[in-house]
């Protein structure tokens, strides 16, 4: 493996809400890791490809940091692994960002359901077998070829316990990296979570990794919920993990970056000062890397036994059976794969996490609709409504699709709340204008602002059937705008 990453330094995942902090703290935040897909939008047409705005790409490229491209949504461990549809856009971003290497997850997202390939809603771990090593390695070689850039896979969190026939975590990561001749993005938080949940001791995993292949380290905050420690990206890095990280990075001869991660919906409560303190902590770790040996201590000999093991297809079939809505499940029994009671518990956790993701997405994209539903039917009924929606529909990779699907669900399962239809129409139009980058016209009560104000004040909107109606024009032409074109006779909202 000839690639030696440049030493970029400590940094953080870039979020739009942190843009000002990145631009005003270039001396502290040395690396901006861009997740391009989080900045893309997907149009509403069913066959549309997600893409980013060229203006936004230029804006991001003007960041004062060195940049890295980190893929989300197109992982490399599955039998279904896109090497075509998203590549041209991702490659464009990678080139414009001048990312020295790129990374993606050693995970599975799309599985074969009864009606074709389906997003299962979560980055699921692969079954760690010899066949899976070959599959992942081939996917990675193909991805490297189409992106024409050095590639590192991210070591993932895994809420399952190891099976007898599986290759232990460290040996598995090493086998994939060696077979693909690629780099490793060592997510120490994921390994730490796996350790705390009893899956694998972090020291054992690290002892088996090829240290010279580790180009990048991720660190983030964790959280305990639903009986498990979760890779929640919730804020402050666990001090015990910082100690482990200090010991680990001191032995990495080819480390190019250490990156702090925080989820977008945790930023406001964590605050900018705390965020910058975490990056300062990464600087202390980075100083340790300057003493790393040129030649690392060799990893332990790989000594895993090869067992007769279920195929990757069988594992993905089981994921589809447990994660997809009933009508989408493939329905064929997975006889060669014994499902333990602890596996069912893990699948239950994954389903709860998916449900939390999807509910959070609806609350973010249709915030006023969600708040009005809460005011109108109460929390218990709202949670029940969301549960029924999640159980009946497929997850969507892009939040706009999730919002449109939820709107269709509400249309098919109408709820009588004053103002609900108009607020849902208003918010869905905002989303459609944003997703399709078009100007939309919609007839709404002229005083839609009063309805929004009532919701903000925590009360049900005042409602009258003969409110004046106006045509609103909503668009995103350079800057977003909402304007009233004209007024229509009362009671004619389309």
């Amino acid at each position, binding site marked *: 493996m000839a690639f030696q990453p440049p030493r970029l330094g400590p940094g953080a*995942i870039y979020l739009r809400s942190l843009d000002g902090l990145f631009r005003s703290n270039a001396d502290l935040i040395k690396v901006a890791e861009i997740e391009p897909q989080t900045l893309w939008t997907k149009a509403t047409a069913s066959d549309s490809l997600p893409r980013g705005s060229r203006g936004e790409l230029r804006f991001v490229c003007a960041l004062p940091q060195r940049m890295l491209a980190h893929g989300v949504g197109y992982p490399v461990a599955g039998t279904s692994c896109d090497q075509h549809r998203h590549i041209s856009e991702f490659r464009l971003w990678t080139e414009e960002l001048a990312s020295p290497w790129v990374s993606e997850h050693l995970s599975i997202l799309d599985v074969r359901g009864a009606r074709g390939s389906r997003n299962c809603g979560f980055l699921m771990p692969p079954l760690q077998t010899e066949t899976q090593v070959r599959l992942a390695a081939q996917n990675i070689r193909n991805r490297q070829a189409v992106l024409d850039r050095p590639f590192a896979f991210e070591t*993932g*969190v895994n809420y399952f316990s190891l099976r007898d026939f599986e290759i232990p975590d460290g040996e598995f990561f090493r086998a994939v990296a060696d077979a693909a001749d690629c780099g490793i993005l060592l997510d120490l938080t994921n390994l730490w979570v796996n350790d705390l949940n009893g899956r694998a001791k972090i020291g054992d995993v690290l002892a088996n990794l090829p240290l010279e292949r580790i180009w990048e380290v991720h660190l983030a905050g964790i959280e305990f919920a639903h009986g498990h420690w979760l890779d929640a990206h919730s804020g402050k890095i666990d001090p015990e993990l910082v100690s482990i990280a200090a010991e680990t990075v001191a032995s990495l001869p080819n480390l190019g970056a250490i990156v702090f991660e925080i989820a977008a919906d945790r930023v406001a409560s964590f605050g900018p000062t705390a965020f910058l303190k975490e990056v300062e902590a990464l600087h202390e770790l980075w100083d340790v890397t300057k003493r790393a040996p040129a030649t690392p201590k060799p990893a332990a000999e790989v000594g895993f036994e090869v067992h007769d093991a279920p195929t990757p297809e069988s594992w993905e079939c089981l994921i589809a059976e447990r994660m997809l809505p009933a009508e989408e499940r493939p329905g064929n029994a997975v006889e060669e794969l014994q499902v333990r009671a602890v596996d069912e518990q893990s699948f239950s956790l994954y389903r709860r996490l998916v449900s*939390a993701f999807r509910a959070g997405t609806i609350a973010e994209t249709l915030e006023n609709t969600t*708040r009005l539903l809460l005011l109108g039917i109460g929390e218990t009924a709202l949670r029940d409504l969301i549960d029924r929606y999640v159980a009946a529909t497929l997850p969507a*990779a892009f*939040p*706009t699709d999730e919002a449109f699907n939820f709107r269709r669900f509400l249309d098919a399962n109408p709820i009588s709340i004053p103002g609900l239809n108009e607020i849902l129409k208003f918010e869905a139009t905002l989303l459609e204008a944003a997703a399709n980058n078009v100007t939309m016209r919609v007839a709404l009560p002229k005083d839609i*602002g009063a309805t929004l104000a009532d919701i*903000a004040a925590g009360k049900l909107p005042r409602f009258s059937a003969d409110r004046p109606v106006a045509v609103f024009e909503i668009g995103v032409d350079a800057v977003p705008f909402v304007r009233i074109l004209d007024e229509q006779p009362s009671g004619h909202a389309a």
Partner: protein
Amino acid sequence: MSKNVTVLVHDKLNLEQCQKVLAAVLTKSGHTGCFSGLKISFENVVDPANLALLVDKGLQVNEIGH
């Protein structure tokens, strides 16, 4: 879990503020990021008990209620 957070839209939301809502929508239309924990946005909306943030006209977020 840390204290809950919610974001309230200003109570005199006019067309200008609708534009701010649209701008906020634009920041939420991308693919979900890379993490495997809970997304707490929904919990924030249903339980704004501990902390509320007010989005002002400049899209600045200010803490209120404390």
